């Protein structure tokens, strides 16, 4: 690797030439580009966790989306007969992998993105899709950070952290809990809800947040936070993290003799929560958007899902299903696969019927109403407790 002077010079010239051609024309290197071809299937990108600890949710989401794709294709597709195709890429809840996945989807010629579960992994996807003029309909990820990006291509159809906090506070006041402890798992999504709920509680003034703390995800022993909670002795603990740690904390709280109530956020709404938490899980509340199980009139949908995938639908199956339907609707409205036109169409949508109710985006491109309800665990399963209406 010893370089002669002459070859160094040669190299410099060569690179300079290359860089200029690349910089000016772009044609030499941009061969792959976005193929917004006028025929053939229309691709929807879905960058979700297929591996890693969030993989089960990824499967629920993929199935929900696939179901919508199949239904739309059976009904004649979009733009007068073109089929939809789902391009699923793994992000494993990791920024680096999600960027790779998003780039891959762009290379494959995706027109709309309908993925996004982990907020931390979804954030770096935004500039990539934005550069390619691809609208992102995000079914699950809902960190306030996503909103703060103020990217014109990001449409969030899950309730935001803010809306979830509002729902939580409404329920807290309704039930008359006087003191609340807020615990997050130090992930982007979780901390977001914690801080948001705390500031809403402080602004509201009727309830007192006696504790607001974080734990480290992935551990087994949470006696430190249990001690803190027992010391603060709140009437309600609101856990804003995921189910793995949520189950442990509920169990350890109950073992320590905690007498108050416990509520969890949507990331903990998973059948495993009750399994891990054991007997203590009974009666735990959850802030959650409607799931098929808790929705009246969704029995047919559940039956279809079961028939197609031989398993029960799970968290974000419905949102993913709606994301695809929304994408199809926007493409039809725009009468084109051009990203900018689809974004316009999405902004104009009013009253599109989804599981969470009729859709109209706020100027921030979030749901005008989060559609959050309160679930409770009864017999090891989440059932509807209060629809907050």
């Amino acid at each position, binding site marked *: 690797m010893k370089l002669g002077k002459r070859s160094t010079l040669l190299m410099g010239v060569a690179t300079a030439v290359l860089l200029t051609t690349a910089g000016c024309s772009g044609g030499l290197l941009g061969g792959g580009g976005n193929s917004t071809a006028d025929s053939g299937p229309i691709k929807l990108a879905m960058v979700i966790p297929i591996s890693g600890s969030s993989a089960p949710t990824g499967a629920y989401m993929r199935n929900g989306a696939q179901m919508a794709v199949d239904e739309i294709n059976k009904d004649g597709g979009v733009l007068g007969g073109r089929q939809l195709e789902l391009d699923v890429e793994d992000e494993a809840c990791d920024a680096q992998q999600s960027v790779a996945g998003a780039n891959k989807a762009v290379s494959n010629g995706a027109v709309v993105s309908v993925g996004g579960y982990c907020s931390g992994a979804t954030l770096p996807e935004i500039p990539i899709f934005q550069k390619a003029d691809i609208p992102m309909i995000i079914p699950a990820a809902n960190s306030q950070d996503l909103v703060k990006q103020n990217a014109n291509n990001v449409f969030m159809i899950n309730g935001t952290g803010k809306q979830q906090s509002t729902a939580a506070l409404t329920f807290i006041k309704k039930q008359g809990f006087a003191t609340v402890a807020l615990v997050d798992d130090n992930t982007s999504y979780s901390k977001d809800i914690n801080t948001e709920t705390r500031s809403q509680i402080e602004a509201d003034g009727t309830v007192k947040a006696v504790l607001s703390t*974080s734990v480290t995800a992935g551990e087994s022993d949470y006696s430190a936070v249990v001690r803190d909670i027992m010391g603060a002795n709140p009437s309600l603990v609101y856990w804003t993290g995921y189910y793995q740690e949520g189950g442990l904390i509920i169990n350890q709280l109950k073992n320590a*003799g905690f007498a108050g109530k416990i509520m969890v956020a949507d990331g903990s709404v998973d059948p*495993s929560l009750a399994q891990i938490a*054991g007997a203590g899980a009974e009666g735990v509340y959850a802030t959650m958007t409607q799931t098929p199980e808790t929705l009246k009139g969704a029995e047919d949908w559940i039956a279809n899902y079961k028939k197609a995938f031989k398993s029960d639908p799970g968290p974000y199956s419905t949102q993913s299903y709606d994301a695809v339907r929304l994408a199809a609707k926007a493409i039809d409205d725009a009468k084109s696969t051009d990203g900018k036109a689809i974004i316009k169409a999405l902004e104009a949508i009013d009253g599109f019927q989804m599981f969470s109710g009729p859709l109209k985006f706020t100027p921030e491109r979030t749901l005008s109403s989060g559609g959050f309800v309160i679930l409770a665990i009864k017999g090891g399963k989440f059932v509807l407790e209060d629809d907050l209406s």
Partner: protein
Amino acid sequence: MSQLIWDGLFVGSFYALIALGYSMVYGIIKLLNFAHGDIYMLGAFVGFAALTSLGGIPASLSIGALLVVMLVSMLLTGTAGVLIERLAYRPLRGAPRLAVLITAVGVSFSLEYGVSAIAGPNPRAFPIRLEGNVFSLLGARISLPQIILMLIAAVLMILLNFYVQKTSTGRAMRSIALDRNASLLMGINVNSVITRTFFIGSALAGAAGVMAGAYYGKIDFLMGFIIGLKAFTAAVIGGIGNIKGAMLGGLVLGFVEAFGAEWFGGQWRDVFAFAVLILFLTLRPTGILGERVTERV
């Protein structure tokens, strides 16, 4: 305050059980068995598999079942430890430390992702759960399962101590720790003693894994990573290579950590533990009970 102490002691007894294996192996072949924490994880999953294959167990039998499953798990993880030593470490005896350490990282990876490939990457809920009354002692809330688990841990450690102090294998272990070549000359079957050491150390970690599964209720394939590091820290605090030191170190670390979490907040607990480790290694690398050794040129 007394709650803090009790919580620290309880977690510390887990650390101690795992630290023992670290310390024993290190004492005998100066190998830092990086994969030791993953043996703990393996133990939990073996217990999980055994219990699942047994089917539903009535809650009244849970302690009995737990003990049986623990024995099975100890046997299997012990064997796994022996196999690992045989296949990965023994061929490298006499090789530079760097090579052995890298191998240990490889073993750790293989165990973690091997279990992940077989059992899936998702956390599992442990099939049986120790439930029991909570009572108050000197202001600390103590639950029956905690007492049972600490008793088991104590019995295991006492047995180990007896084994090392009173049996011929134990004496052989200690003599190898002092001078392997001399022990070889004295007619000690060094290989067989090393094998036994790995078996015992791994079995203890496996037992800890089952206990953790039964108490906490959740197991996952990465559960051994952090606790492995903590156990190493415990072993260093007590004086690595020293069995009593490992026990003491485990308890001390549990303690120190509990206080650290109290002062700095739970999310800083690991930072605090590692800072203690670094402090100990730089200021007193021989630990509380270790002896100062002059390295000869």
